[in-house]
């Protein structure tokens, strides 16, 4: 057991996957010699050489498009998109090519590729460097989407994503890169599609993912002081997401709050709420309340960004509202 940072855990996952499987390659802007803008790919070039660890030009569409072709031809590319905001430039390759190839070609092949991309705020990076756009990708049949909240899952979901035969988007919250946590020496892959109970509780369920999980846990601690025992579910995977786990929790608590950093409207939380208002309807004893960013671009200034990003107080208020 070692204490490592979230970013280091991803680094180790990349290195372990590259060691285990020579078909894994890493590419992206400044990922090789400079070791990545957030340092996540540091040292890989030295260990695995320039054929397998590649700095690319600023050509997001071609990098992701090339990864599709490489995956069709026997490699398992792991691409880094420097900020999730730039996924806008890669949507054709992701959505019309990678996601559809298996289905559209009659099941002839798989497209095993991973696209890593940091989302989220907290560093005052402004409107074009802070967005959480995972709901788009979760809406696309053929893509899988994961979003780790812990060091163990940063490792485990990255390994699982690389081992997966389909295109997987790994969304990394940049505010978590420096977070520390324990990583077992024999760290394992985290199965895609299975949620984790981050805190057990009886009175209300808070569903969350990524950097909002620690916030939800803080909210649960606050609620505990008020005598409310909240359960916190860390989704870990957004597509597919663990509907049985959420439903089971709701069946115990009968109250549901969903919290994420993304803009609330049309976000990932909408789907979870929608499903629970259908298959979980009979379990609901109160409204389903979502906590997300207000409907505006991420603002730059600290006062604004702090207000924009959901915090524990908003989650507490949401839980209290559904229990009222």
């Amino acid at each position, binding site marked *: 057991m070692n204490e490592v940072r979230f970013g280091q855990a991803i680094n180790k996952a990349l290195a372990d996957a590259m060691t285990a499987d020579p078909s894994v390659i890493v590419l992206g802007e400044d990922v090789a010699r400079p070791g990545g803008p957030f340092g996540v790919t540091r040292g890989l070039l030295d260990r695995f050489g320039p054929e397998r660890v590649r700095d690319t030009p600023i050509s997001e569409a071609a*990098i992701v498009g*090339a990864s599709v*072709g490489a995956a069709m031809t*026997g490699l398992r590319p792991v691409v880094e998109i420097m900020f999730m905001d730039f996924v806008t430039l890669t949507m054709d390759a992701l959505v*019309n090519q990678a996601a559809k190839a*298996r289905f559209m070609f009659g099941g002839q092949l798989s497209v095993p590729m991973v696209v890593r991309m940091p989302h989220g705020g907290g560093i005052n990076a402004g409107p074009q460097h802070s967005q959480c756009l995972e709901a788009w990708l979760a809406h696309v*049949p053929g893509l899988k989407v994961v979003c780790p909240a812990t060091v163990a899952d940063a490792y485990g979901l990255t390994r699982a994503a690389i081992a997966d035969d389909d295109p997987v988007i790994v969304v990394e919250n940049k505010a978590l890169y420096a977070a520390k946590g324990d990583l077992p020496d024999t760290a394992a892959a985290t199965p895609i599609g299975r949620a984790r109970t981050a805190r057990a509780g009886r009175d209300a369920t808070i569903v969350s993912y990524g950097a909002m999980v620690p916030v939800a846990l803080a909210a649960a601690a606050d609620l505990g002081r008020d005598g409310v025992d909240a359960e916190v579910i860390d989704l870990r995977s957004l597509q597919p997401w663990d509907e049985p786990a959420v439903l089971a929790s709701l069946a115990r608590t009968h109250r549901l709050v969903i919290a994420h950093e993304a803009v609330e409207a049309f976000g990932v939380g909408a789907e979870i709420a929608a499903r629970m208002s259908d298959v979980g309807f009979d379990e609901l004893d109160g409204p389903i309340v979502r906590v997300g960013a207000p409907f505006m671009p991420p603002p730059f200034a600290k006062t604004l960004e702090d207000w924009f990003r959901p915090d524990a107080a908003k989650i507490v208020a949401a839980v209290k509202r559904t229990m009222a």
Partner: protein
Amino acid sequence: MSHTLAPFATDRLLELYRGMRLVREAEERLSALFAEGEIPGFIHLSIGQEAVPVGVASVLDEADTLASNHRGHGHAIAKGLDLDRFFLELLGKQDGYCRGRGGSMHVADMKLGMLGANGIVGAGLPIAVGSALAHKIRGTGHIAVVFFGDGALAEGVLHESMNLAQLWSLPVLFVCENNGWSEFTEGARQLTTDPQRMAAAYGMKATKVDGNDVIAVAGAAREAVATVRAGKGPCLLECVTRRVRGHFEGDPQKYRDAGDVAAATRDDPLARCESQLIADGISQADIEAVKTATAARVDAAVAKARAGPPPSPADTLADVYSPPREVAT
């Protein structure tokens, strides 16, 4: 059109003729089937452009990979795809290449390196570049080829793909089928550049040939493929050709001069090839025999496709993702 060729062996030329005849026959049948409402969706025919895919594919290996575009029937057939499964797919049948999920714009055969026709203009370019990257890293000795139209020259991803291929010296051959049209608009009203000047911008080796002369195409492709396969970096091959039919079947082509259609029809690569074959001593009867055999082959495929069962929705959802696998760490 700088390419000059050594005389071509007659038996090889006959082989090329057979290839072109098969594409032509298949597409003429598709045209008829479409007119009769037997083909759903829309189809883009490459009639008059057969020399390009057939000439290029004649110098490829089976394991070379190929990315295609919306006008991809010729690319698929020339790469050796099974005609039965091809027609089954175009008619939207269960036993088609894509189980009826893709149709004309998505025919693919991974076993033959055919990475798919593509409904998105330009999308095949980075796919081929990535496929070439895999060939290079894996040391397969194979190359990747991409066919794209002149209209695709305007897409940004073309620029990104050519730069990347050249930067990494990847074994990829860019084949531009320059037919002067993109949908209903002439290339000249869309582009201020051309394949040669784009290639020059990256210092990429490039050739331009008469794309309706199958000997010229095959010859230029042979040279380019040799360069690419030898690890000397990517090449671009521009084939100047003509679109005989409308953009898609059913296109009334009101935007087009009758003269342009007539000229395109006159400059027929098959007719030119036939003349050469006759000059080389092949008899008219031999040529007719090819035609008859080809028609019979296509007849059989059409019959099979017509008789094929429609796809059932049952297995579709299972193919959105791969079957689960044990994950080893």
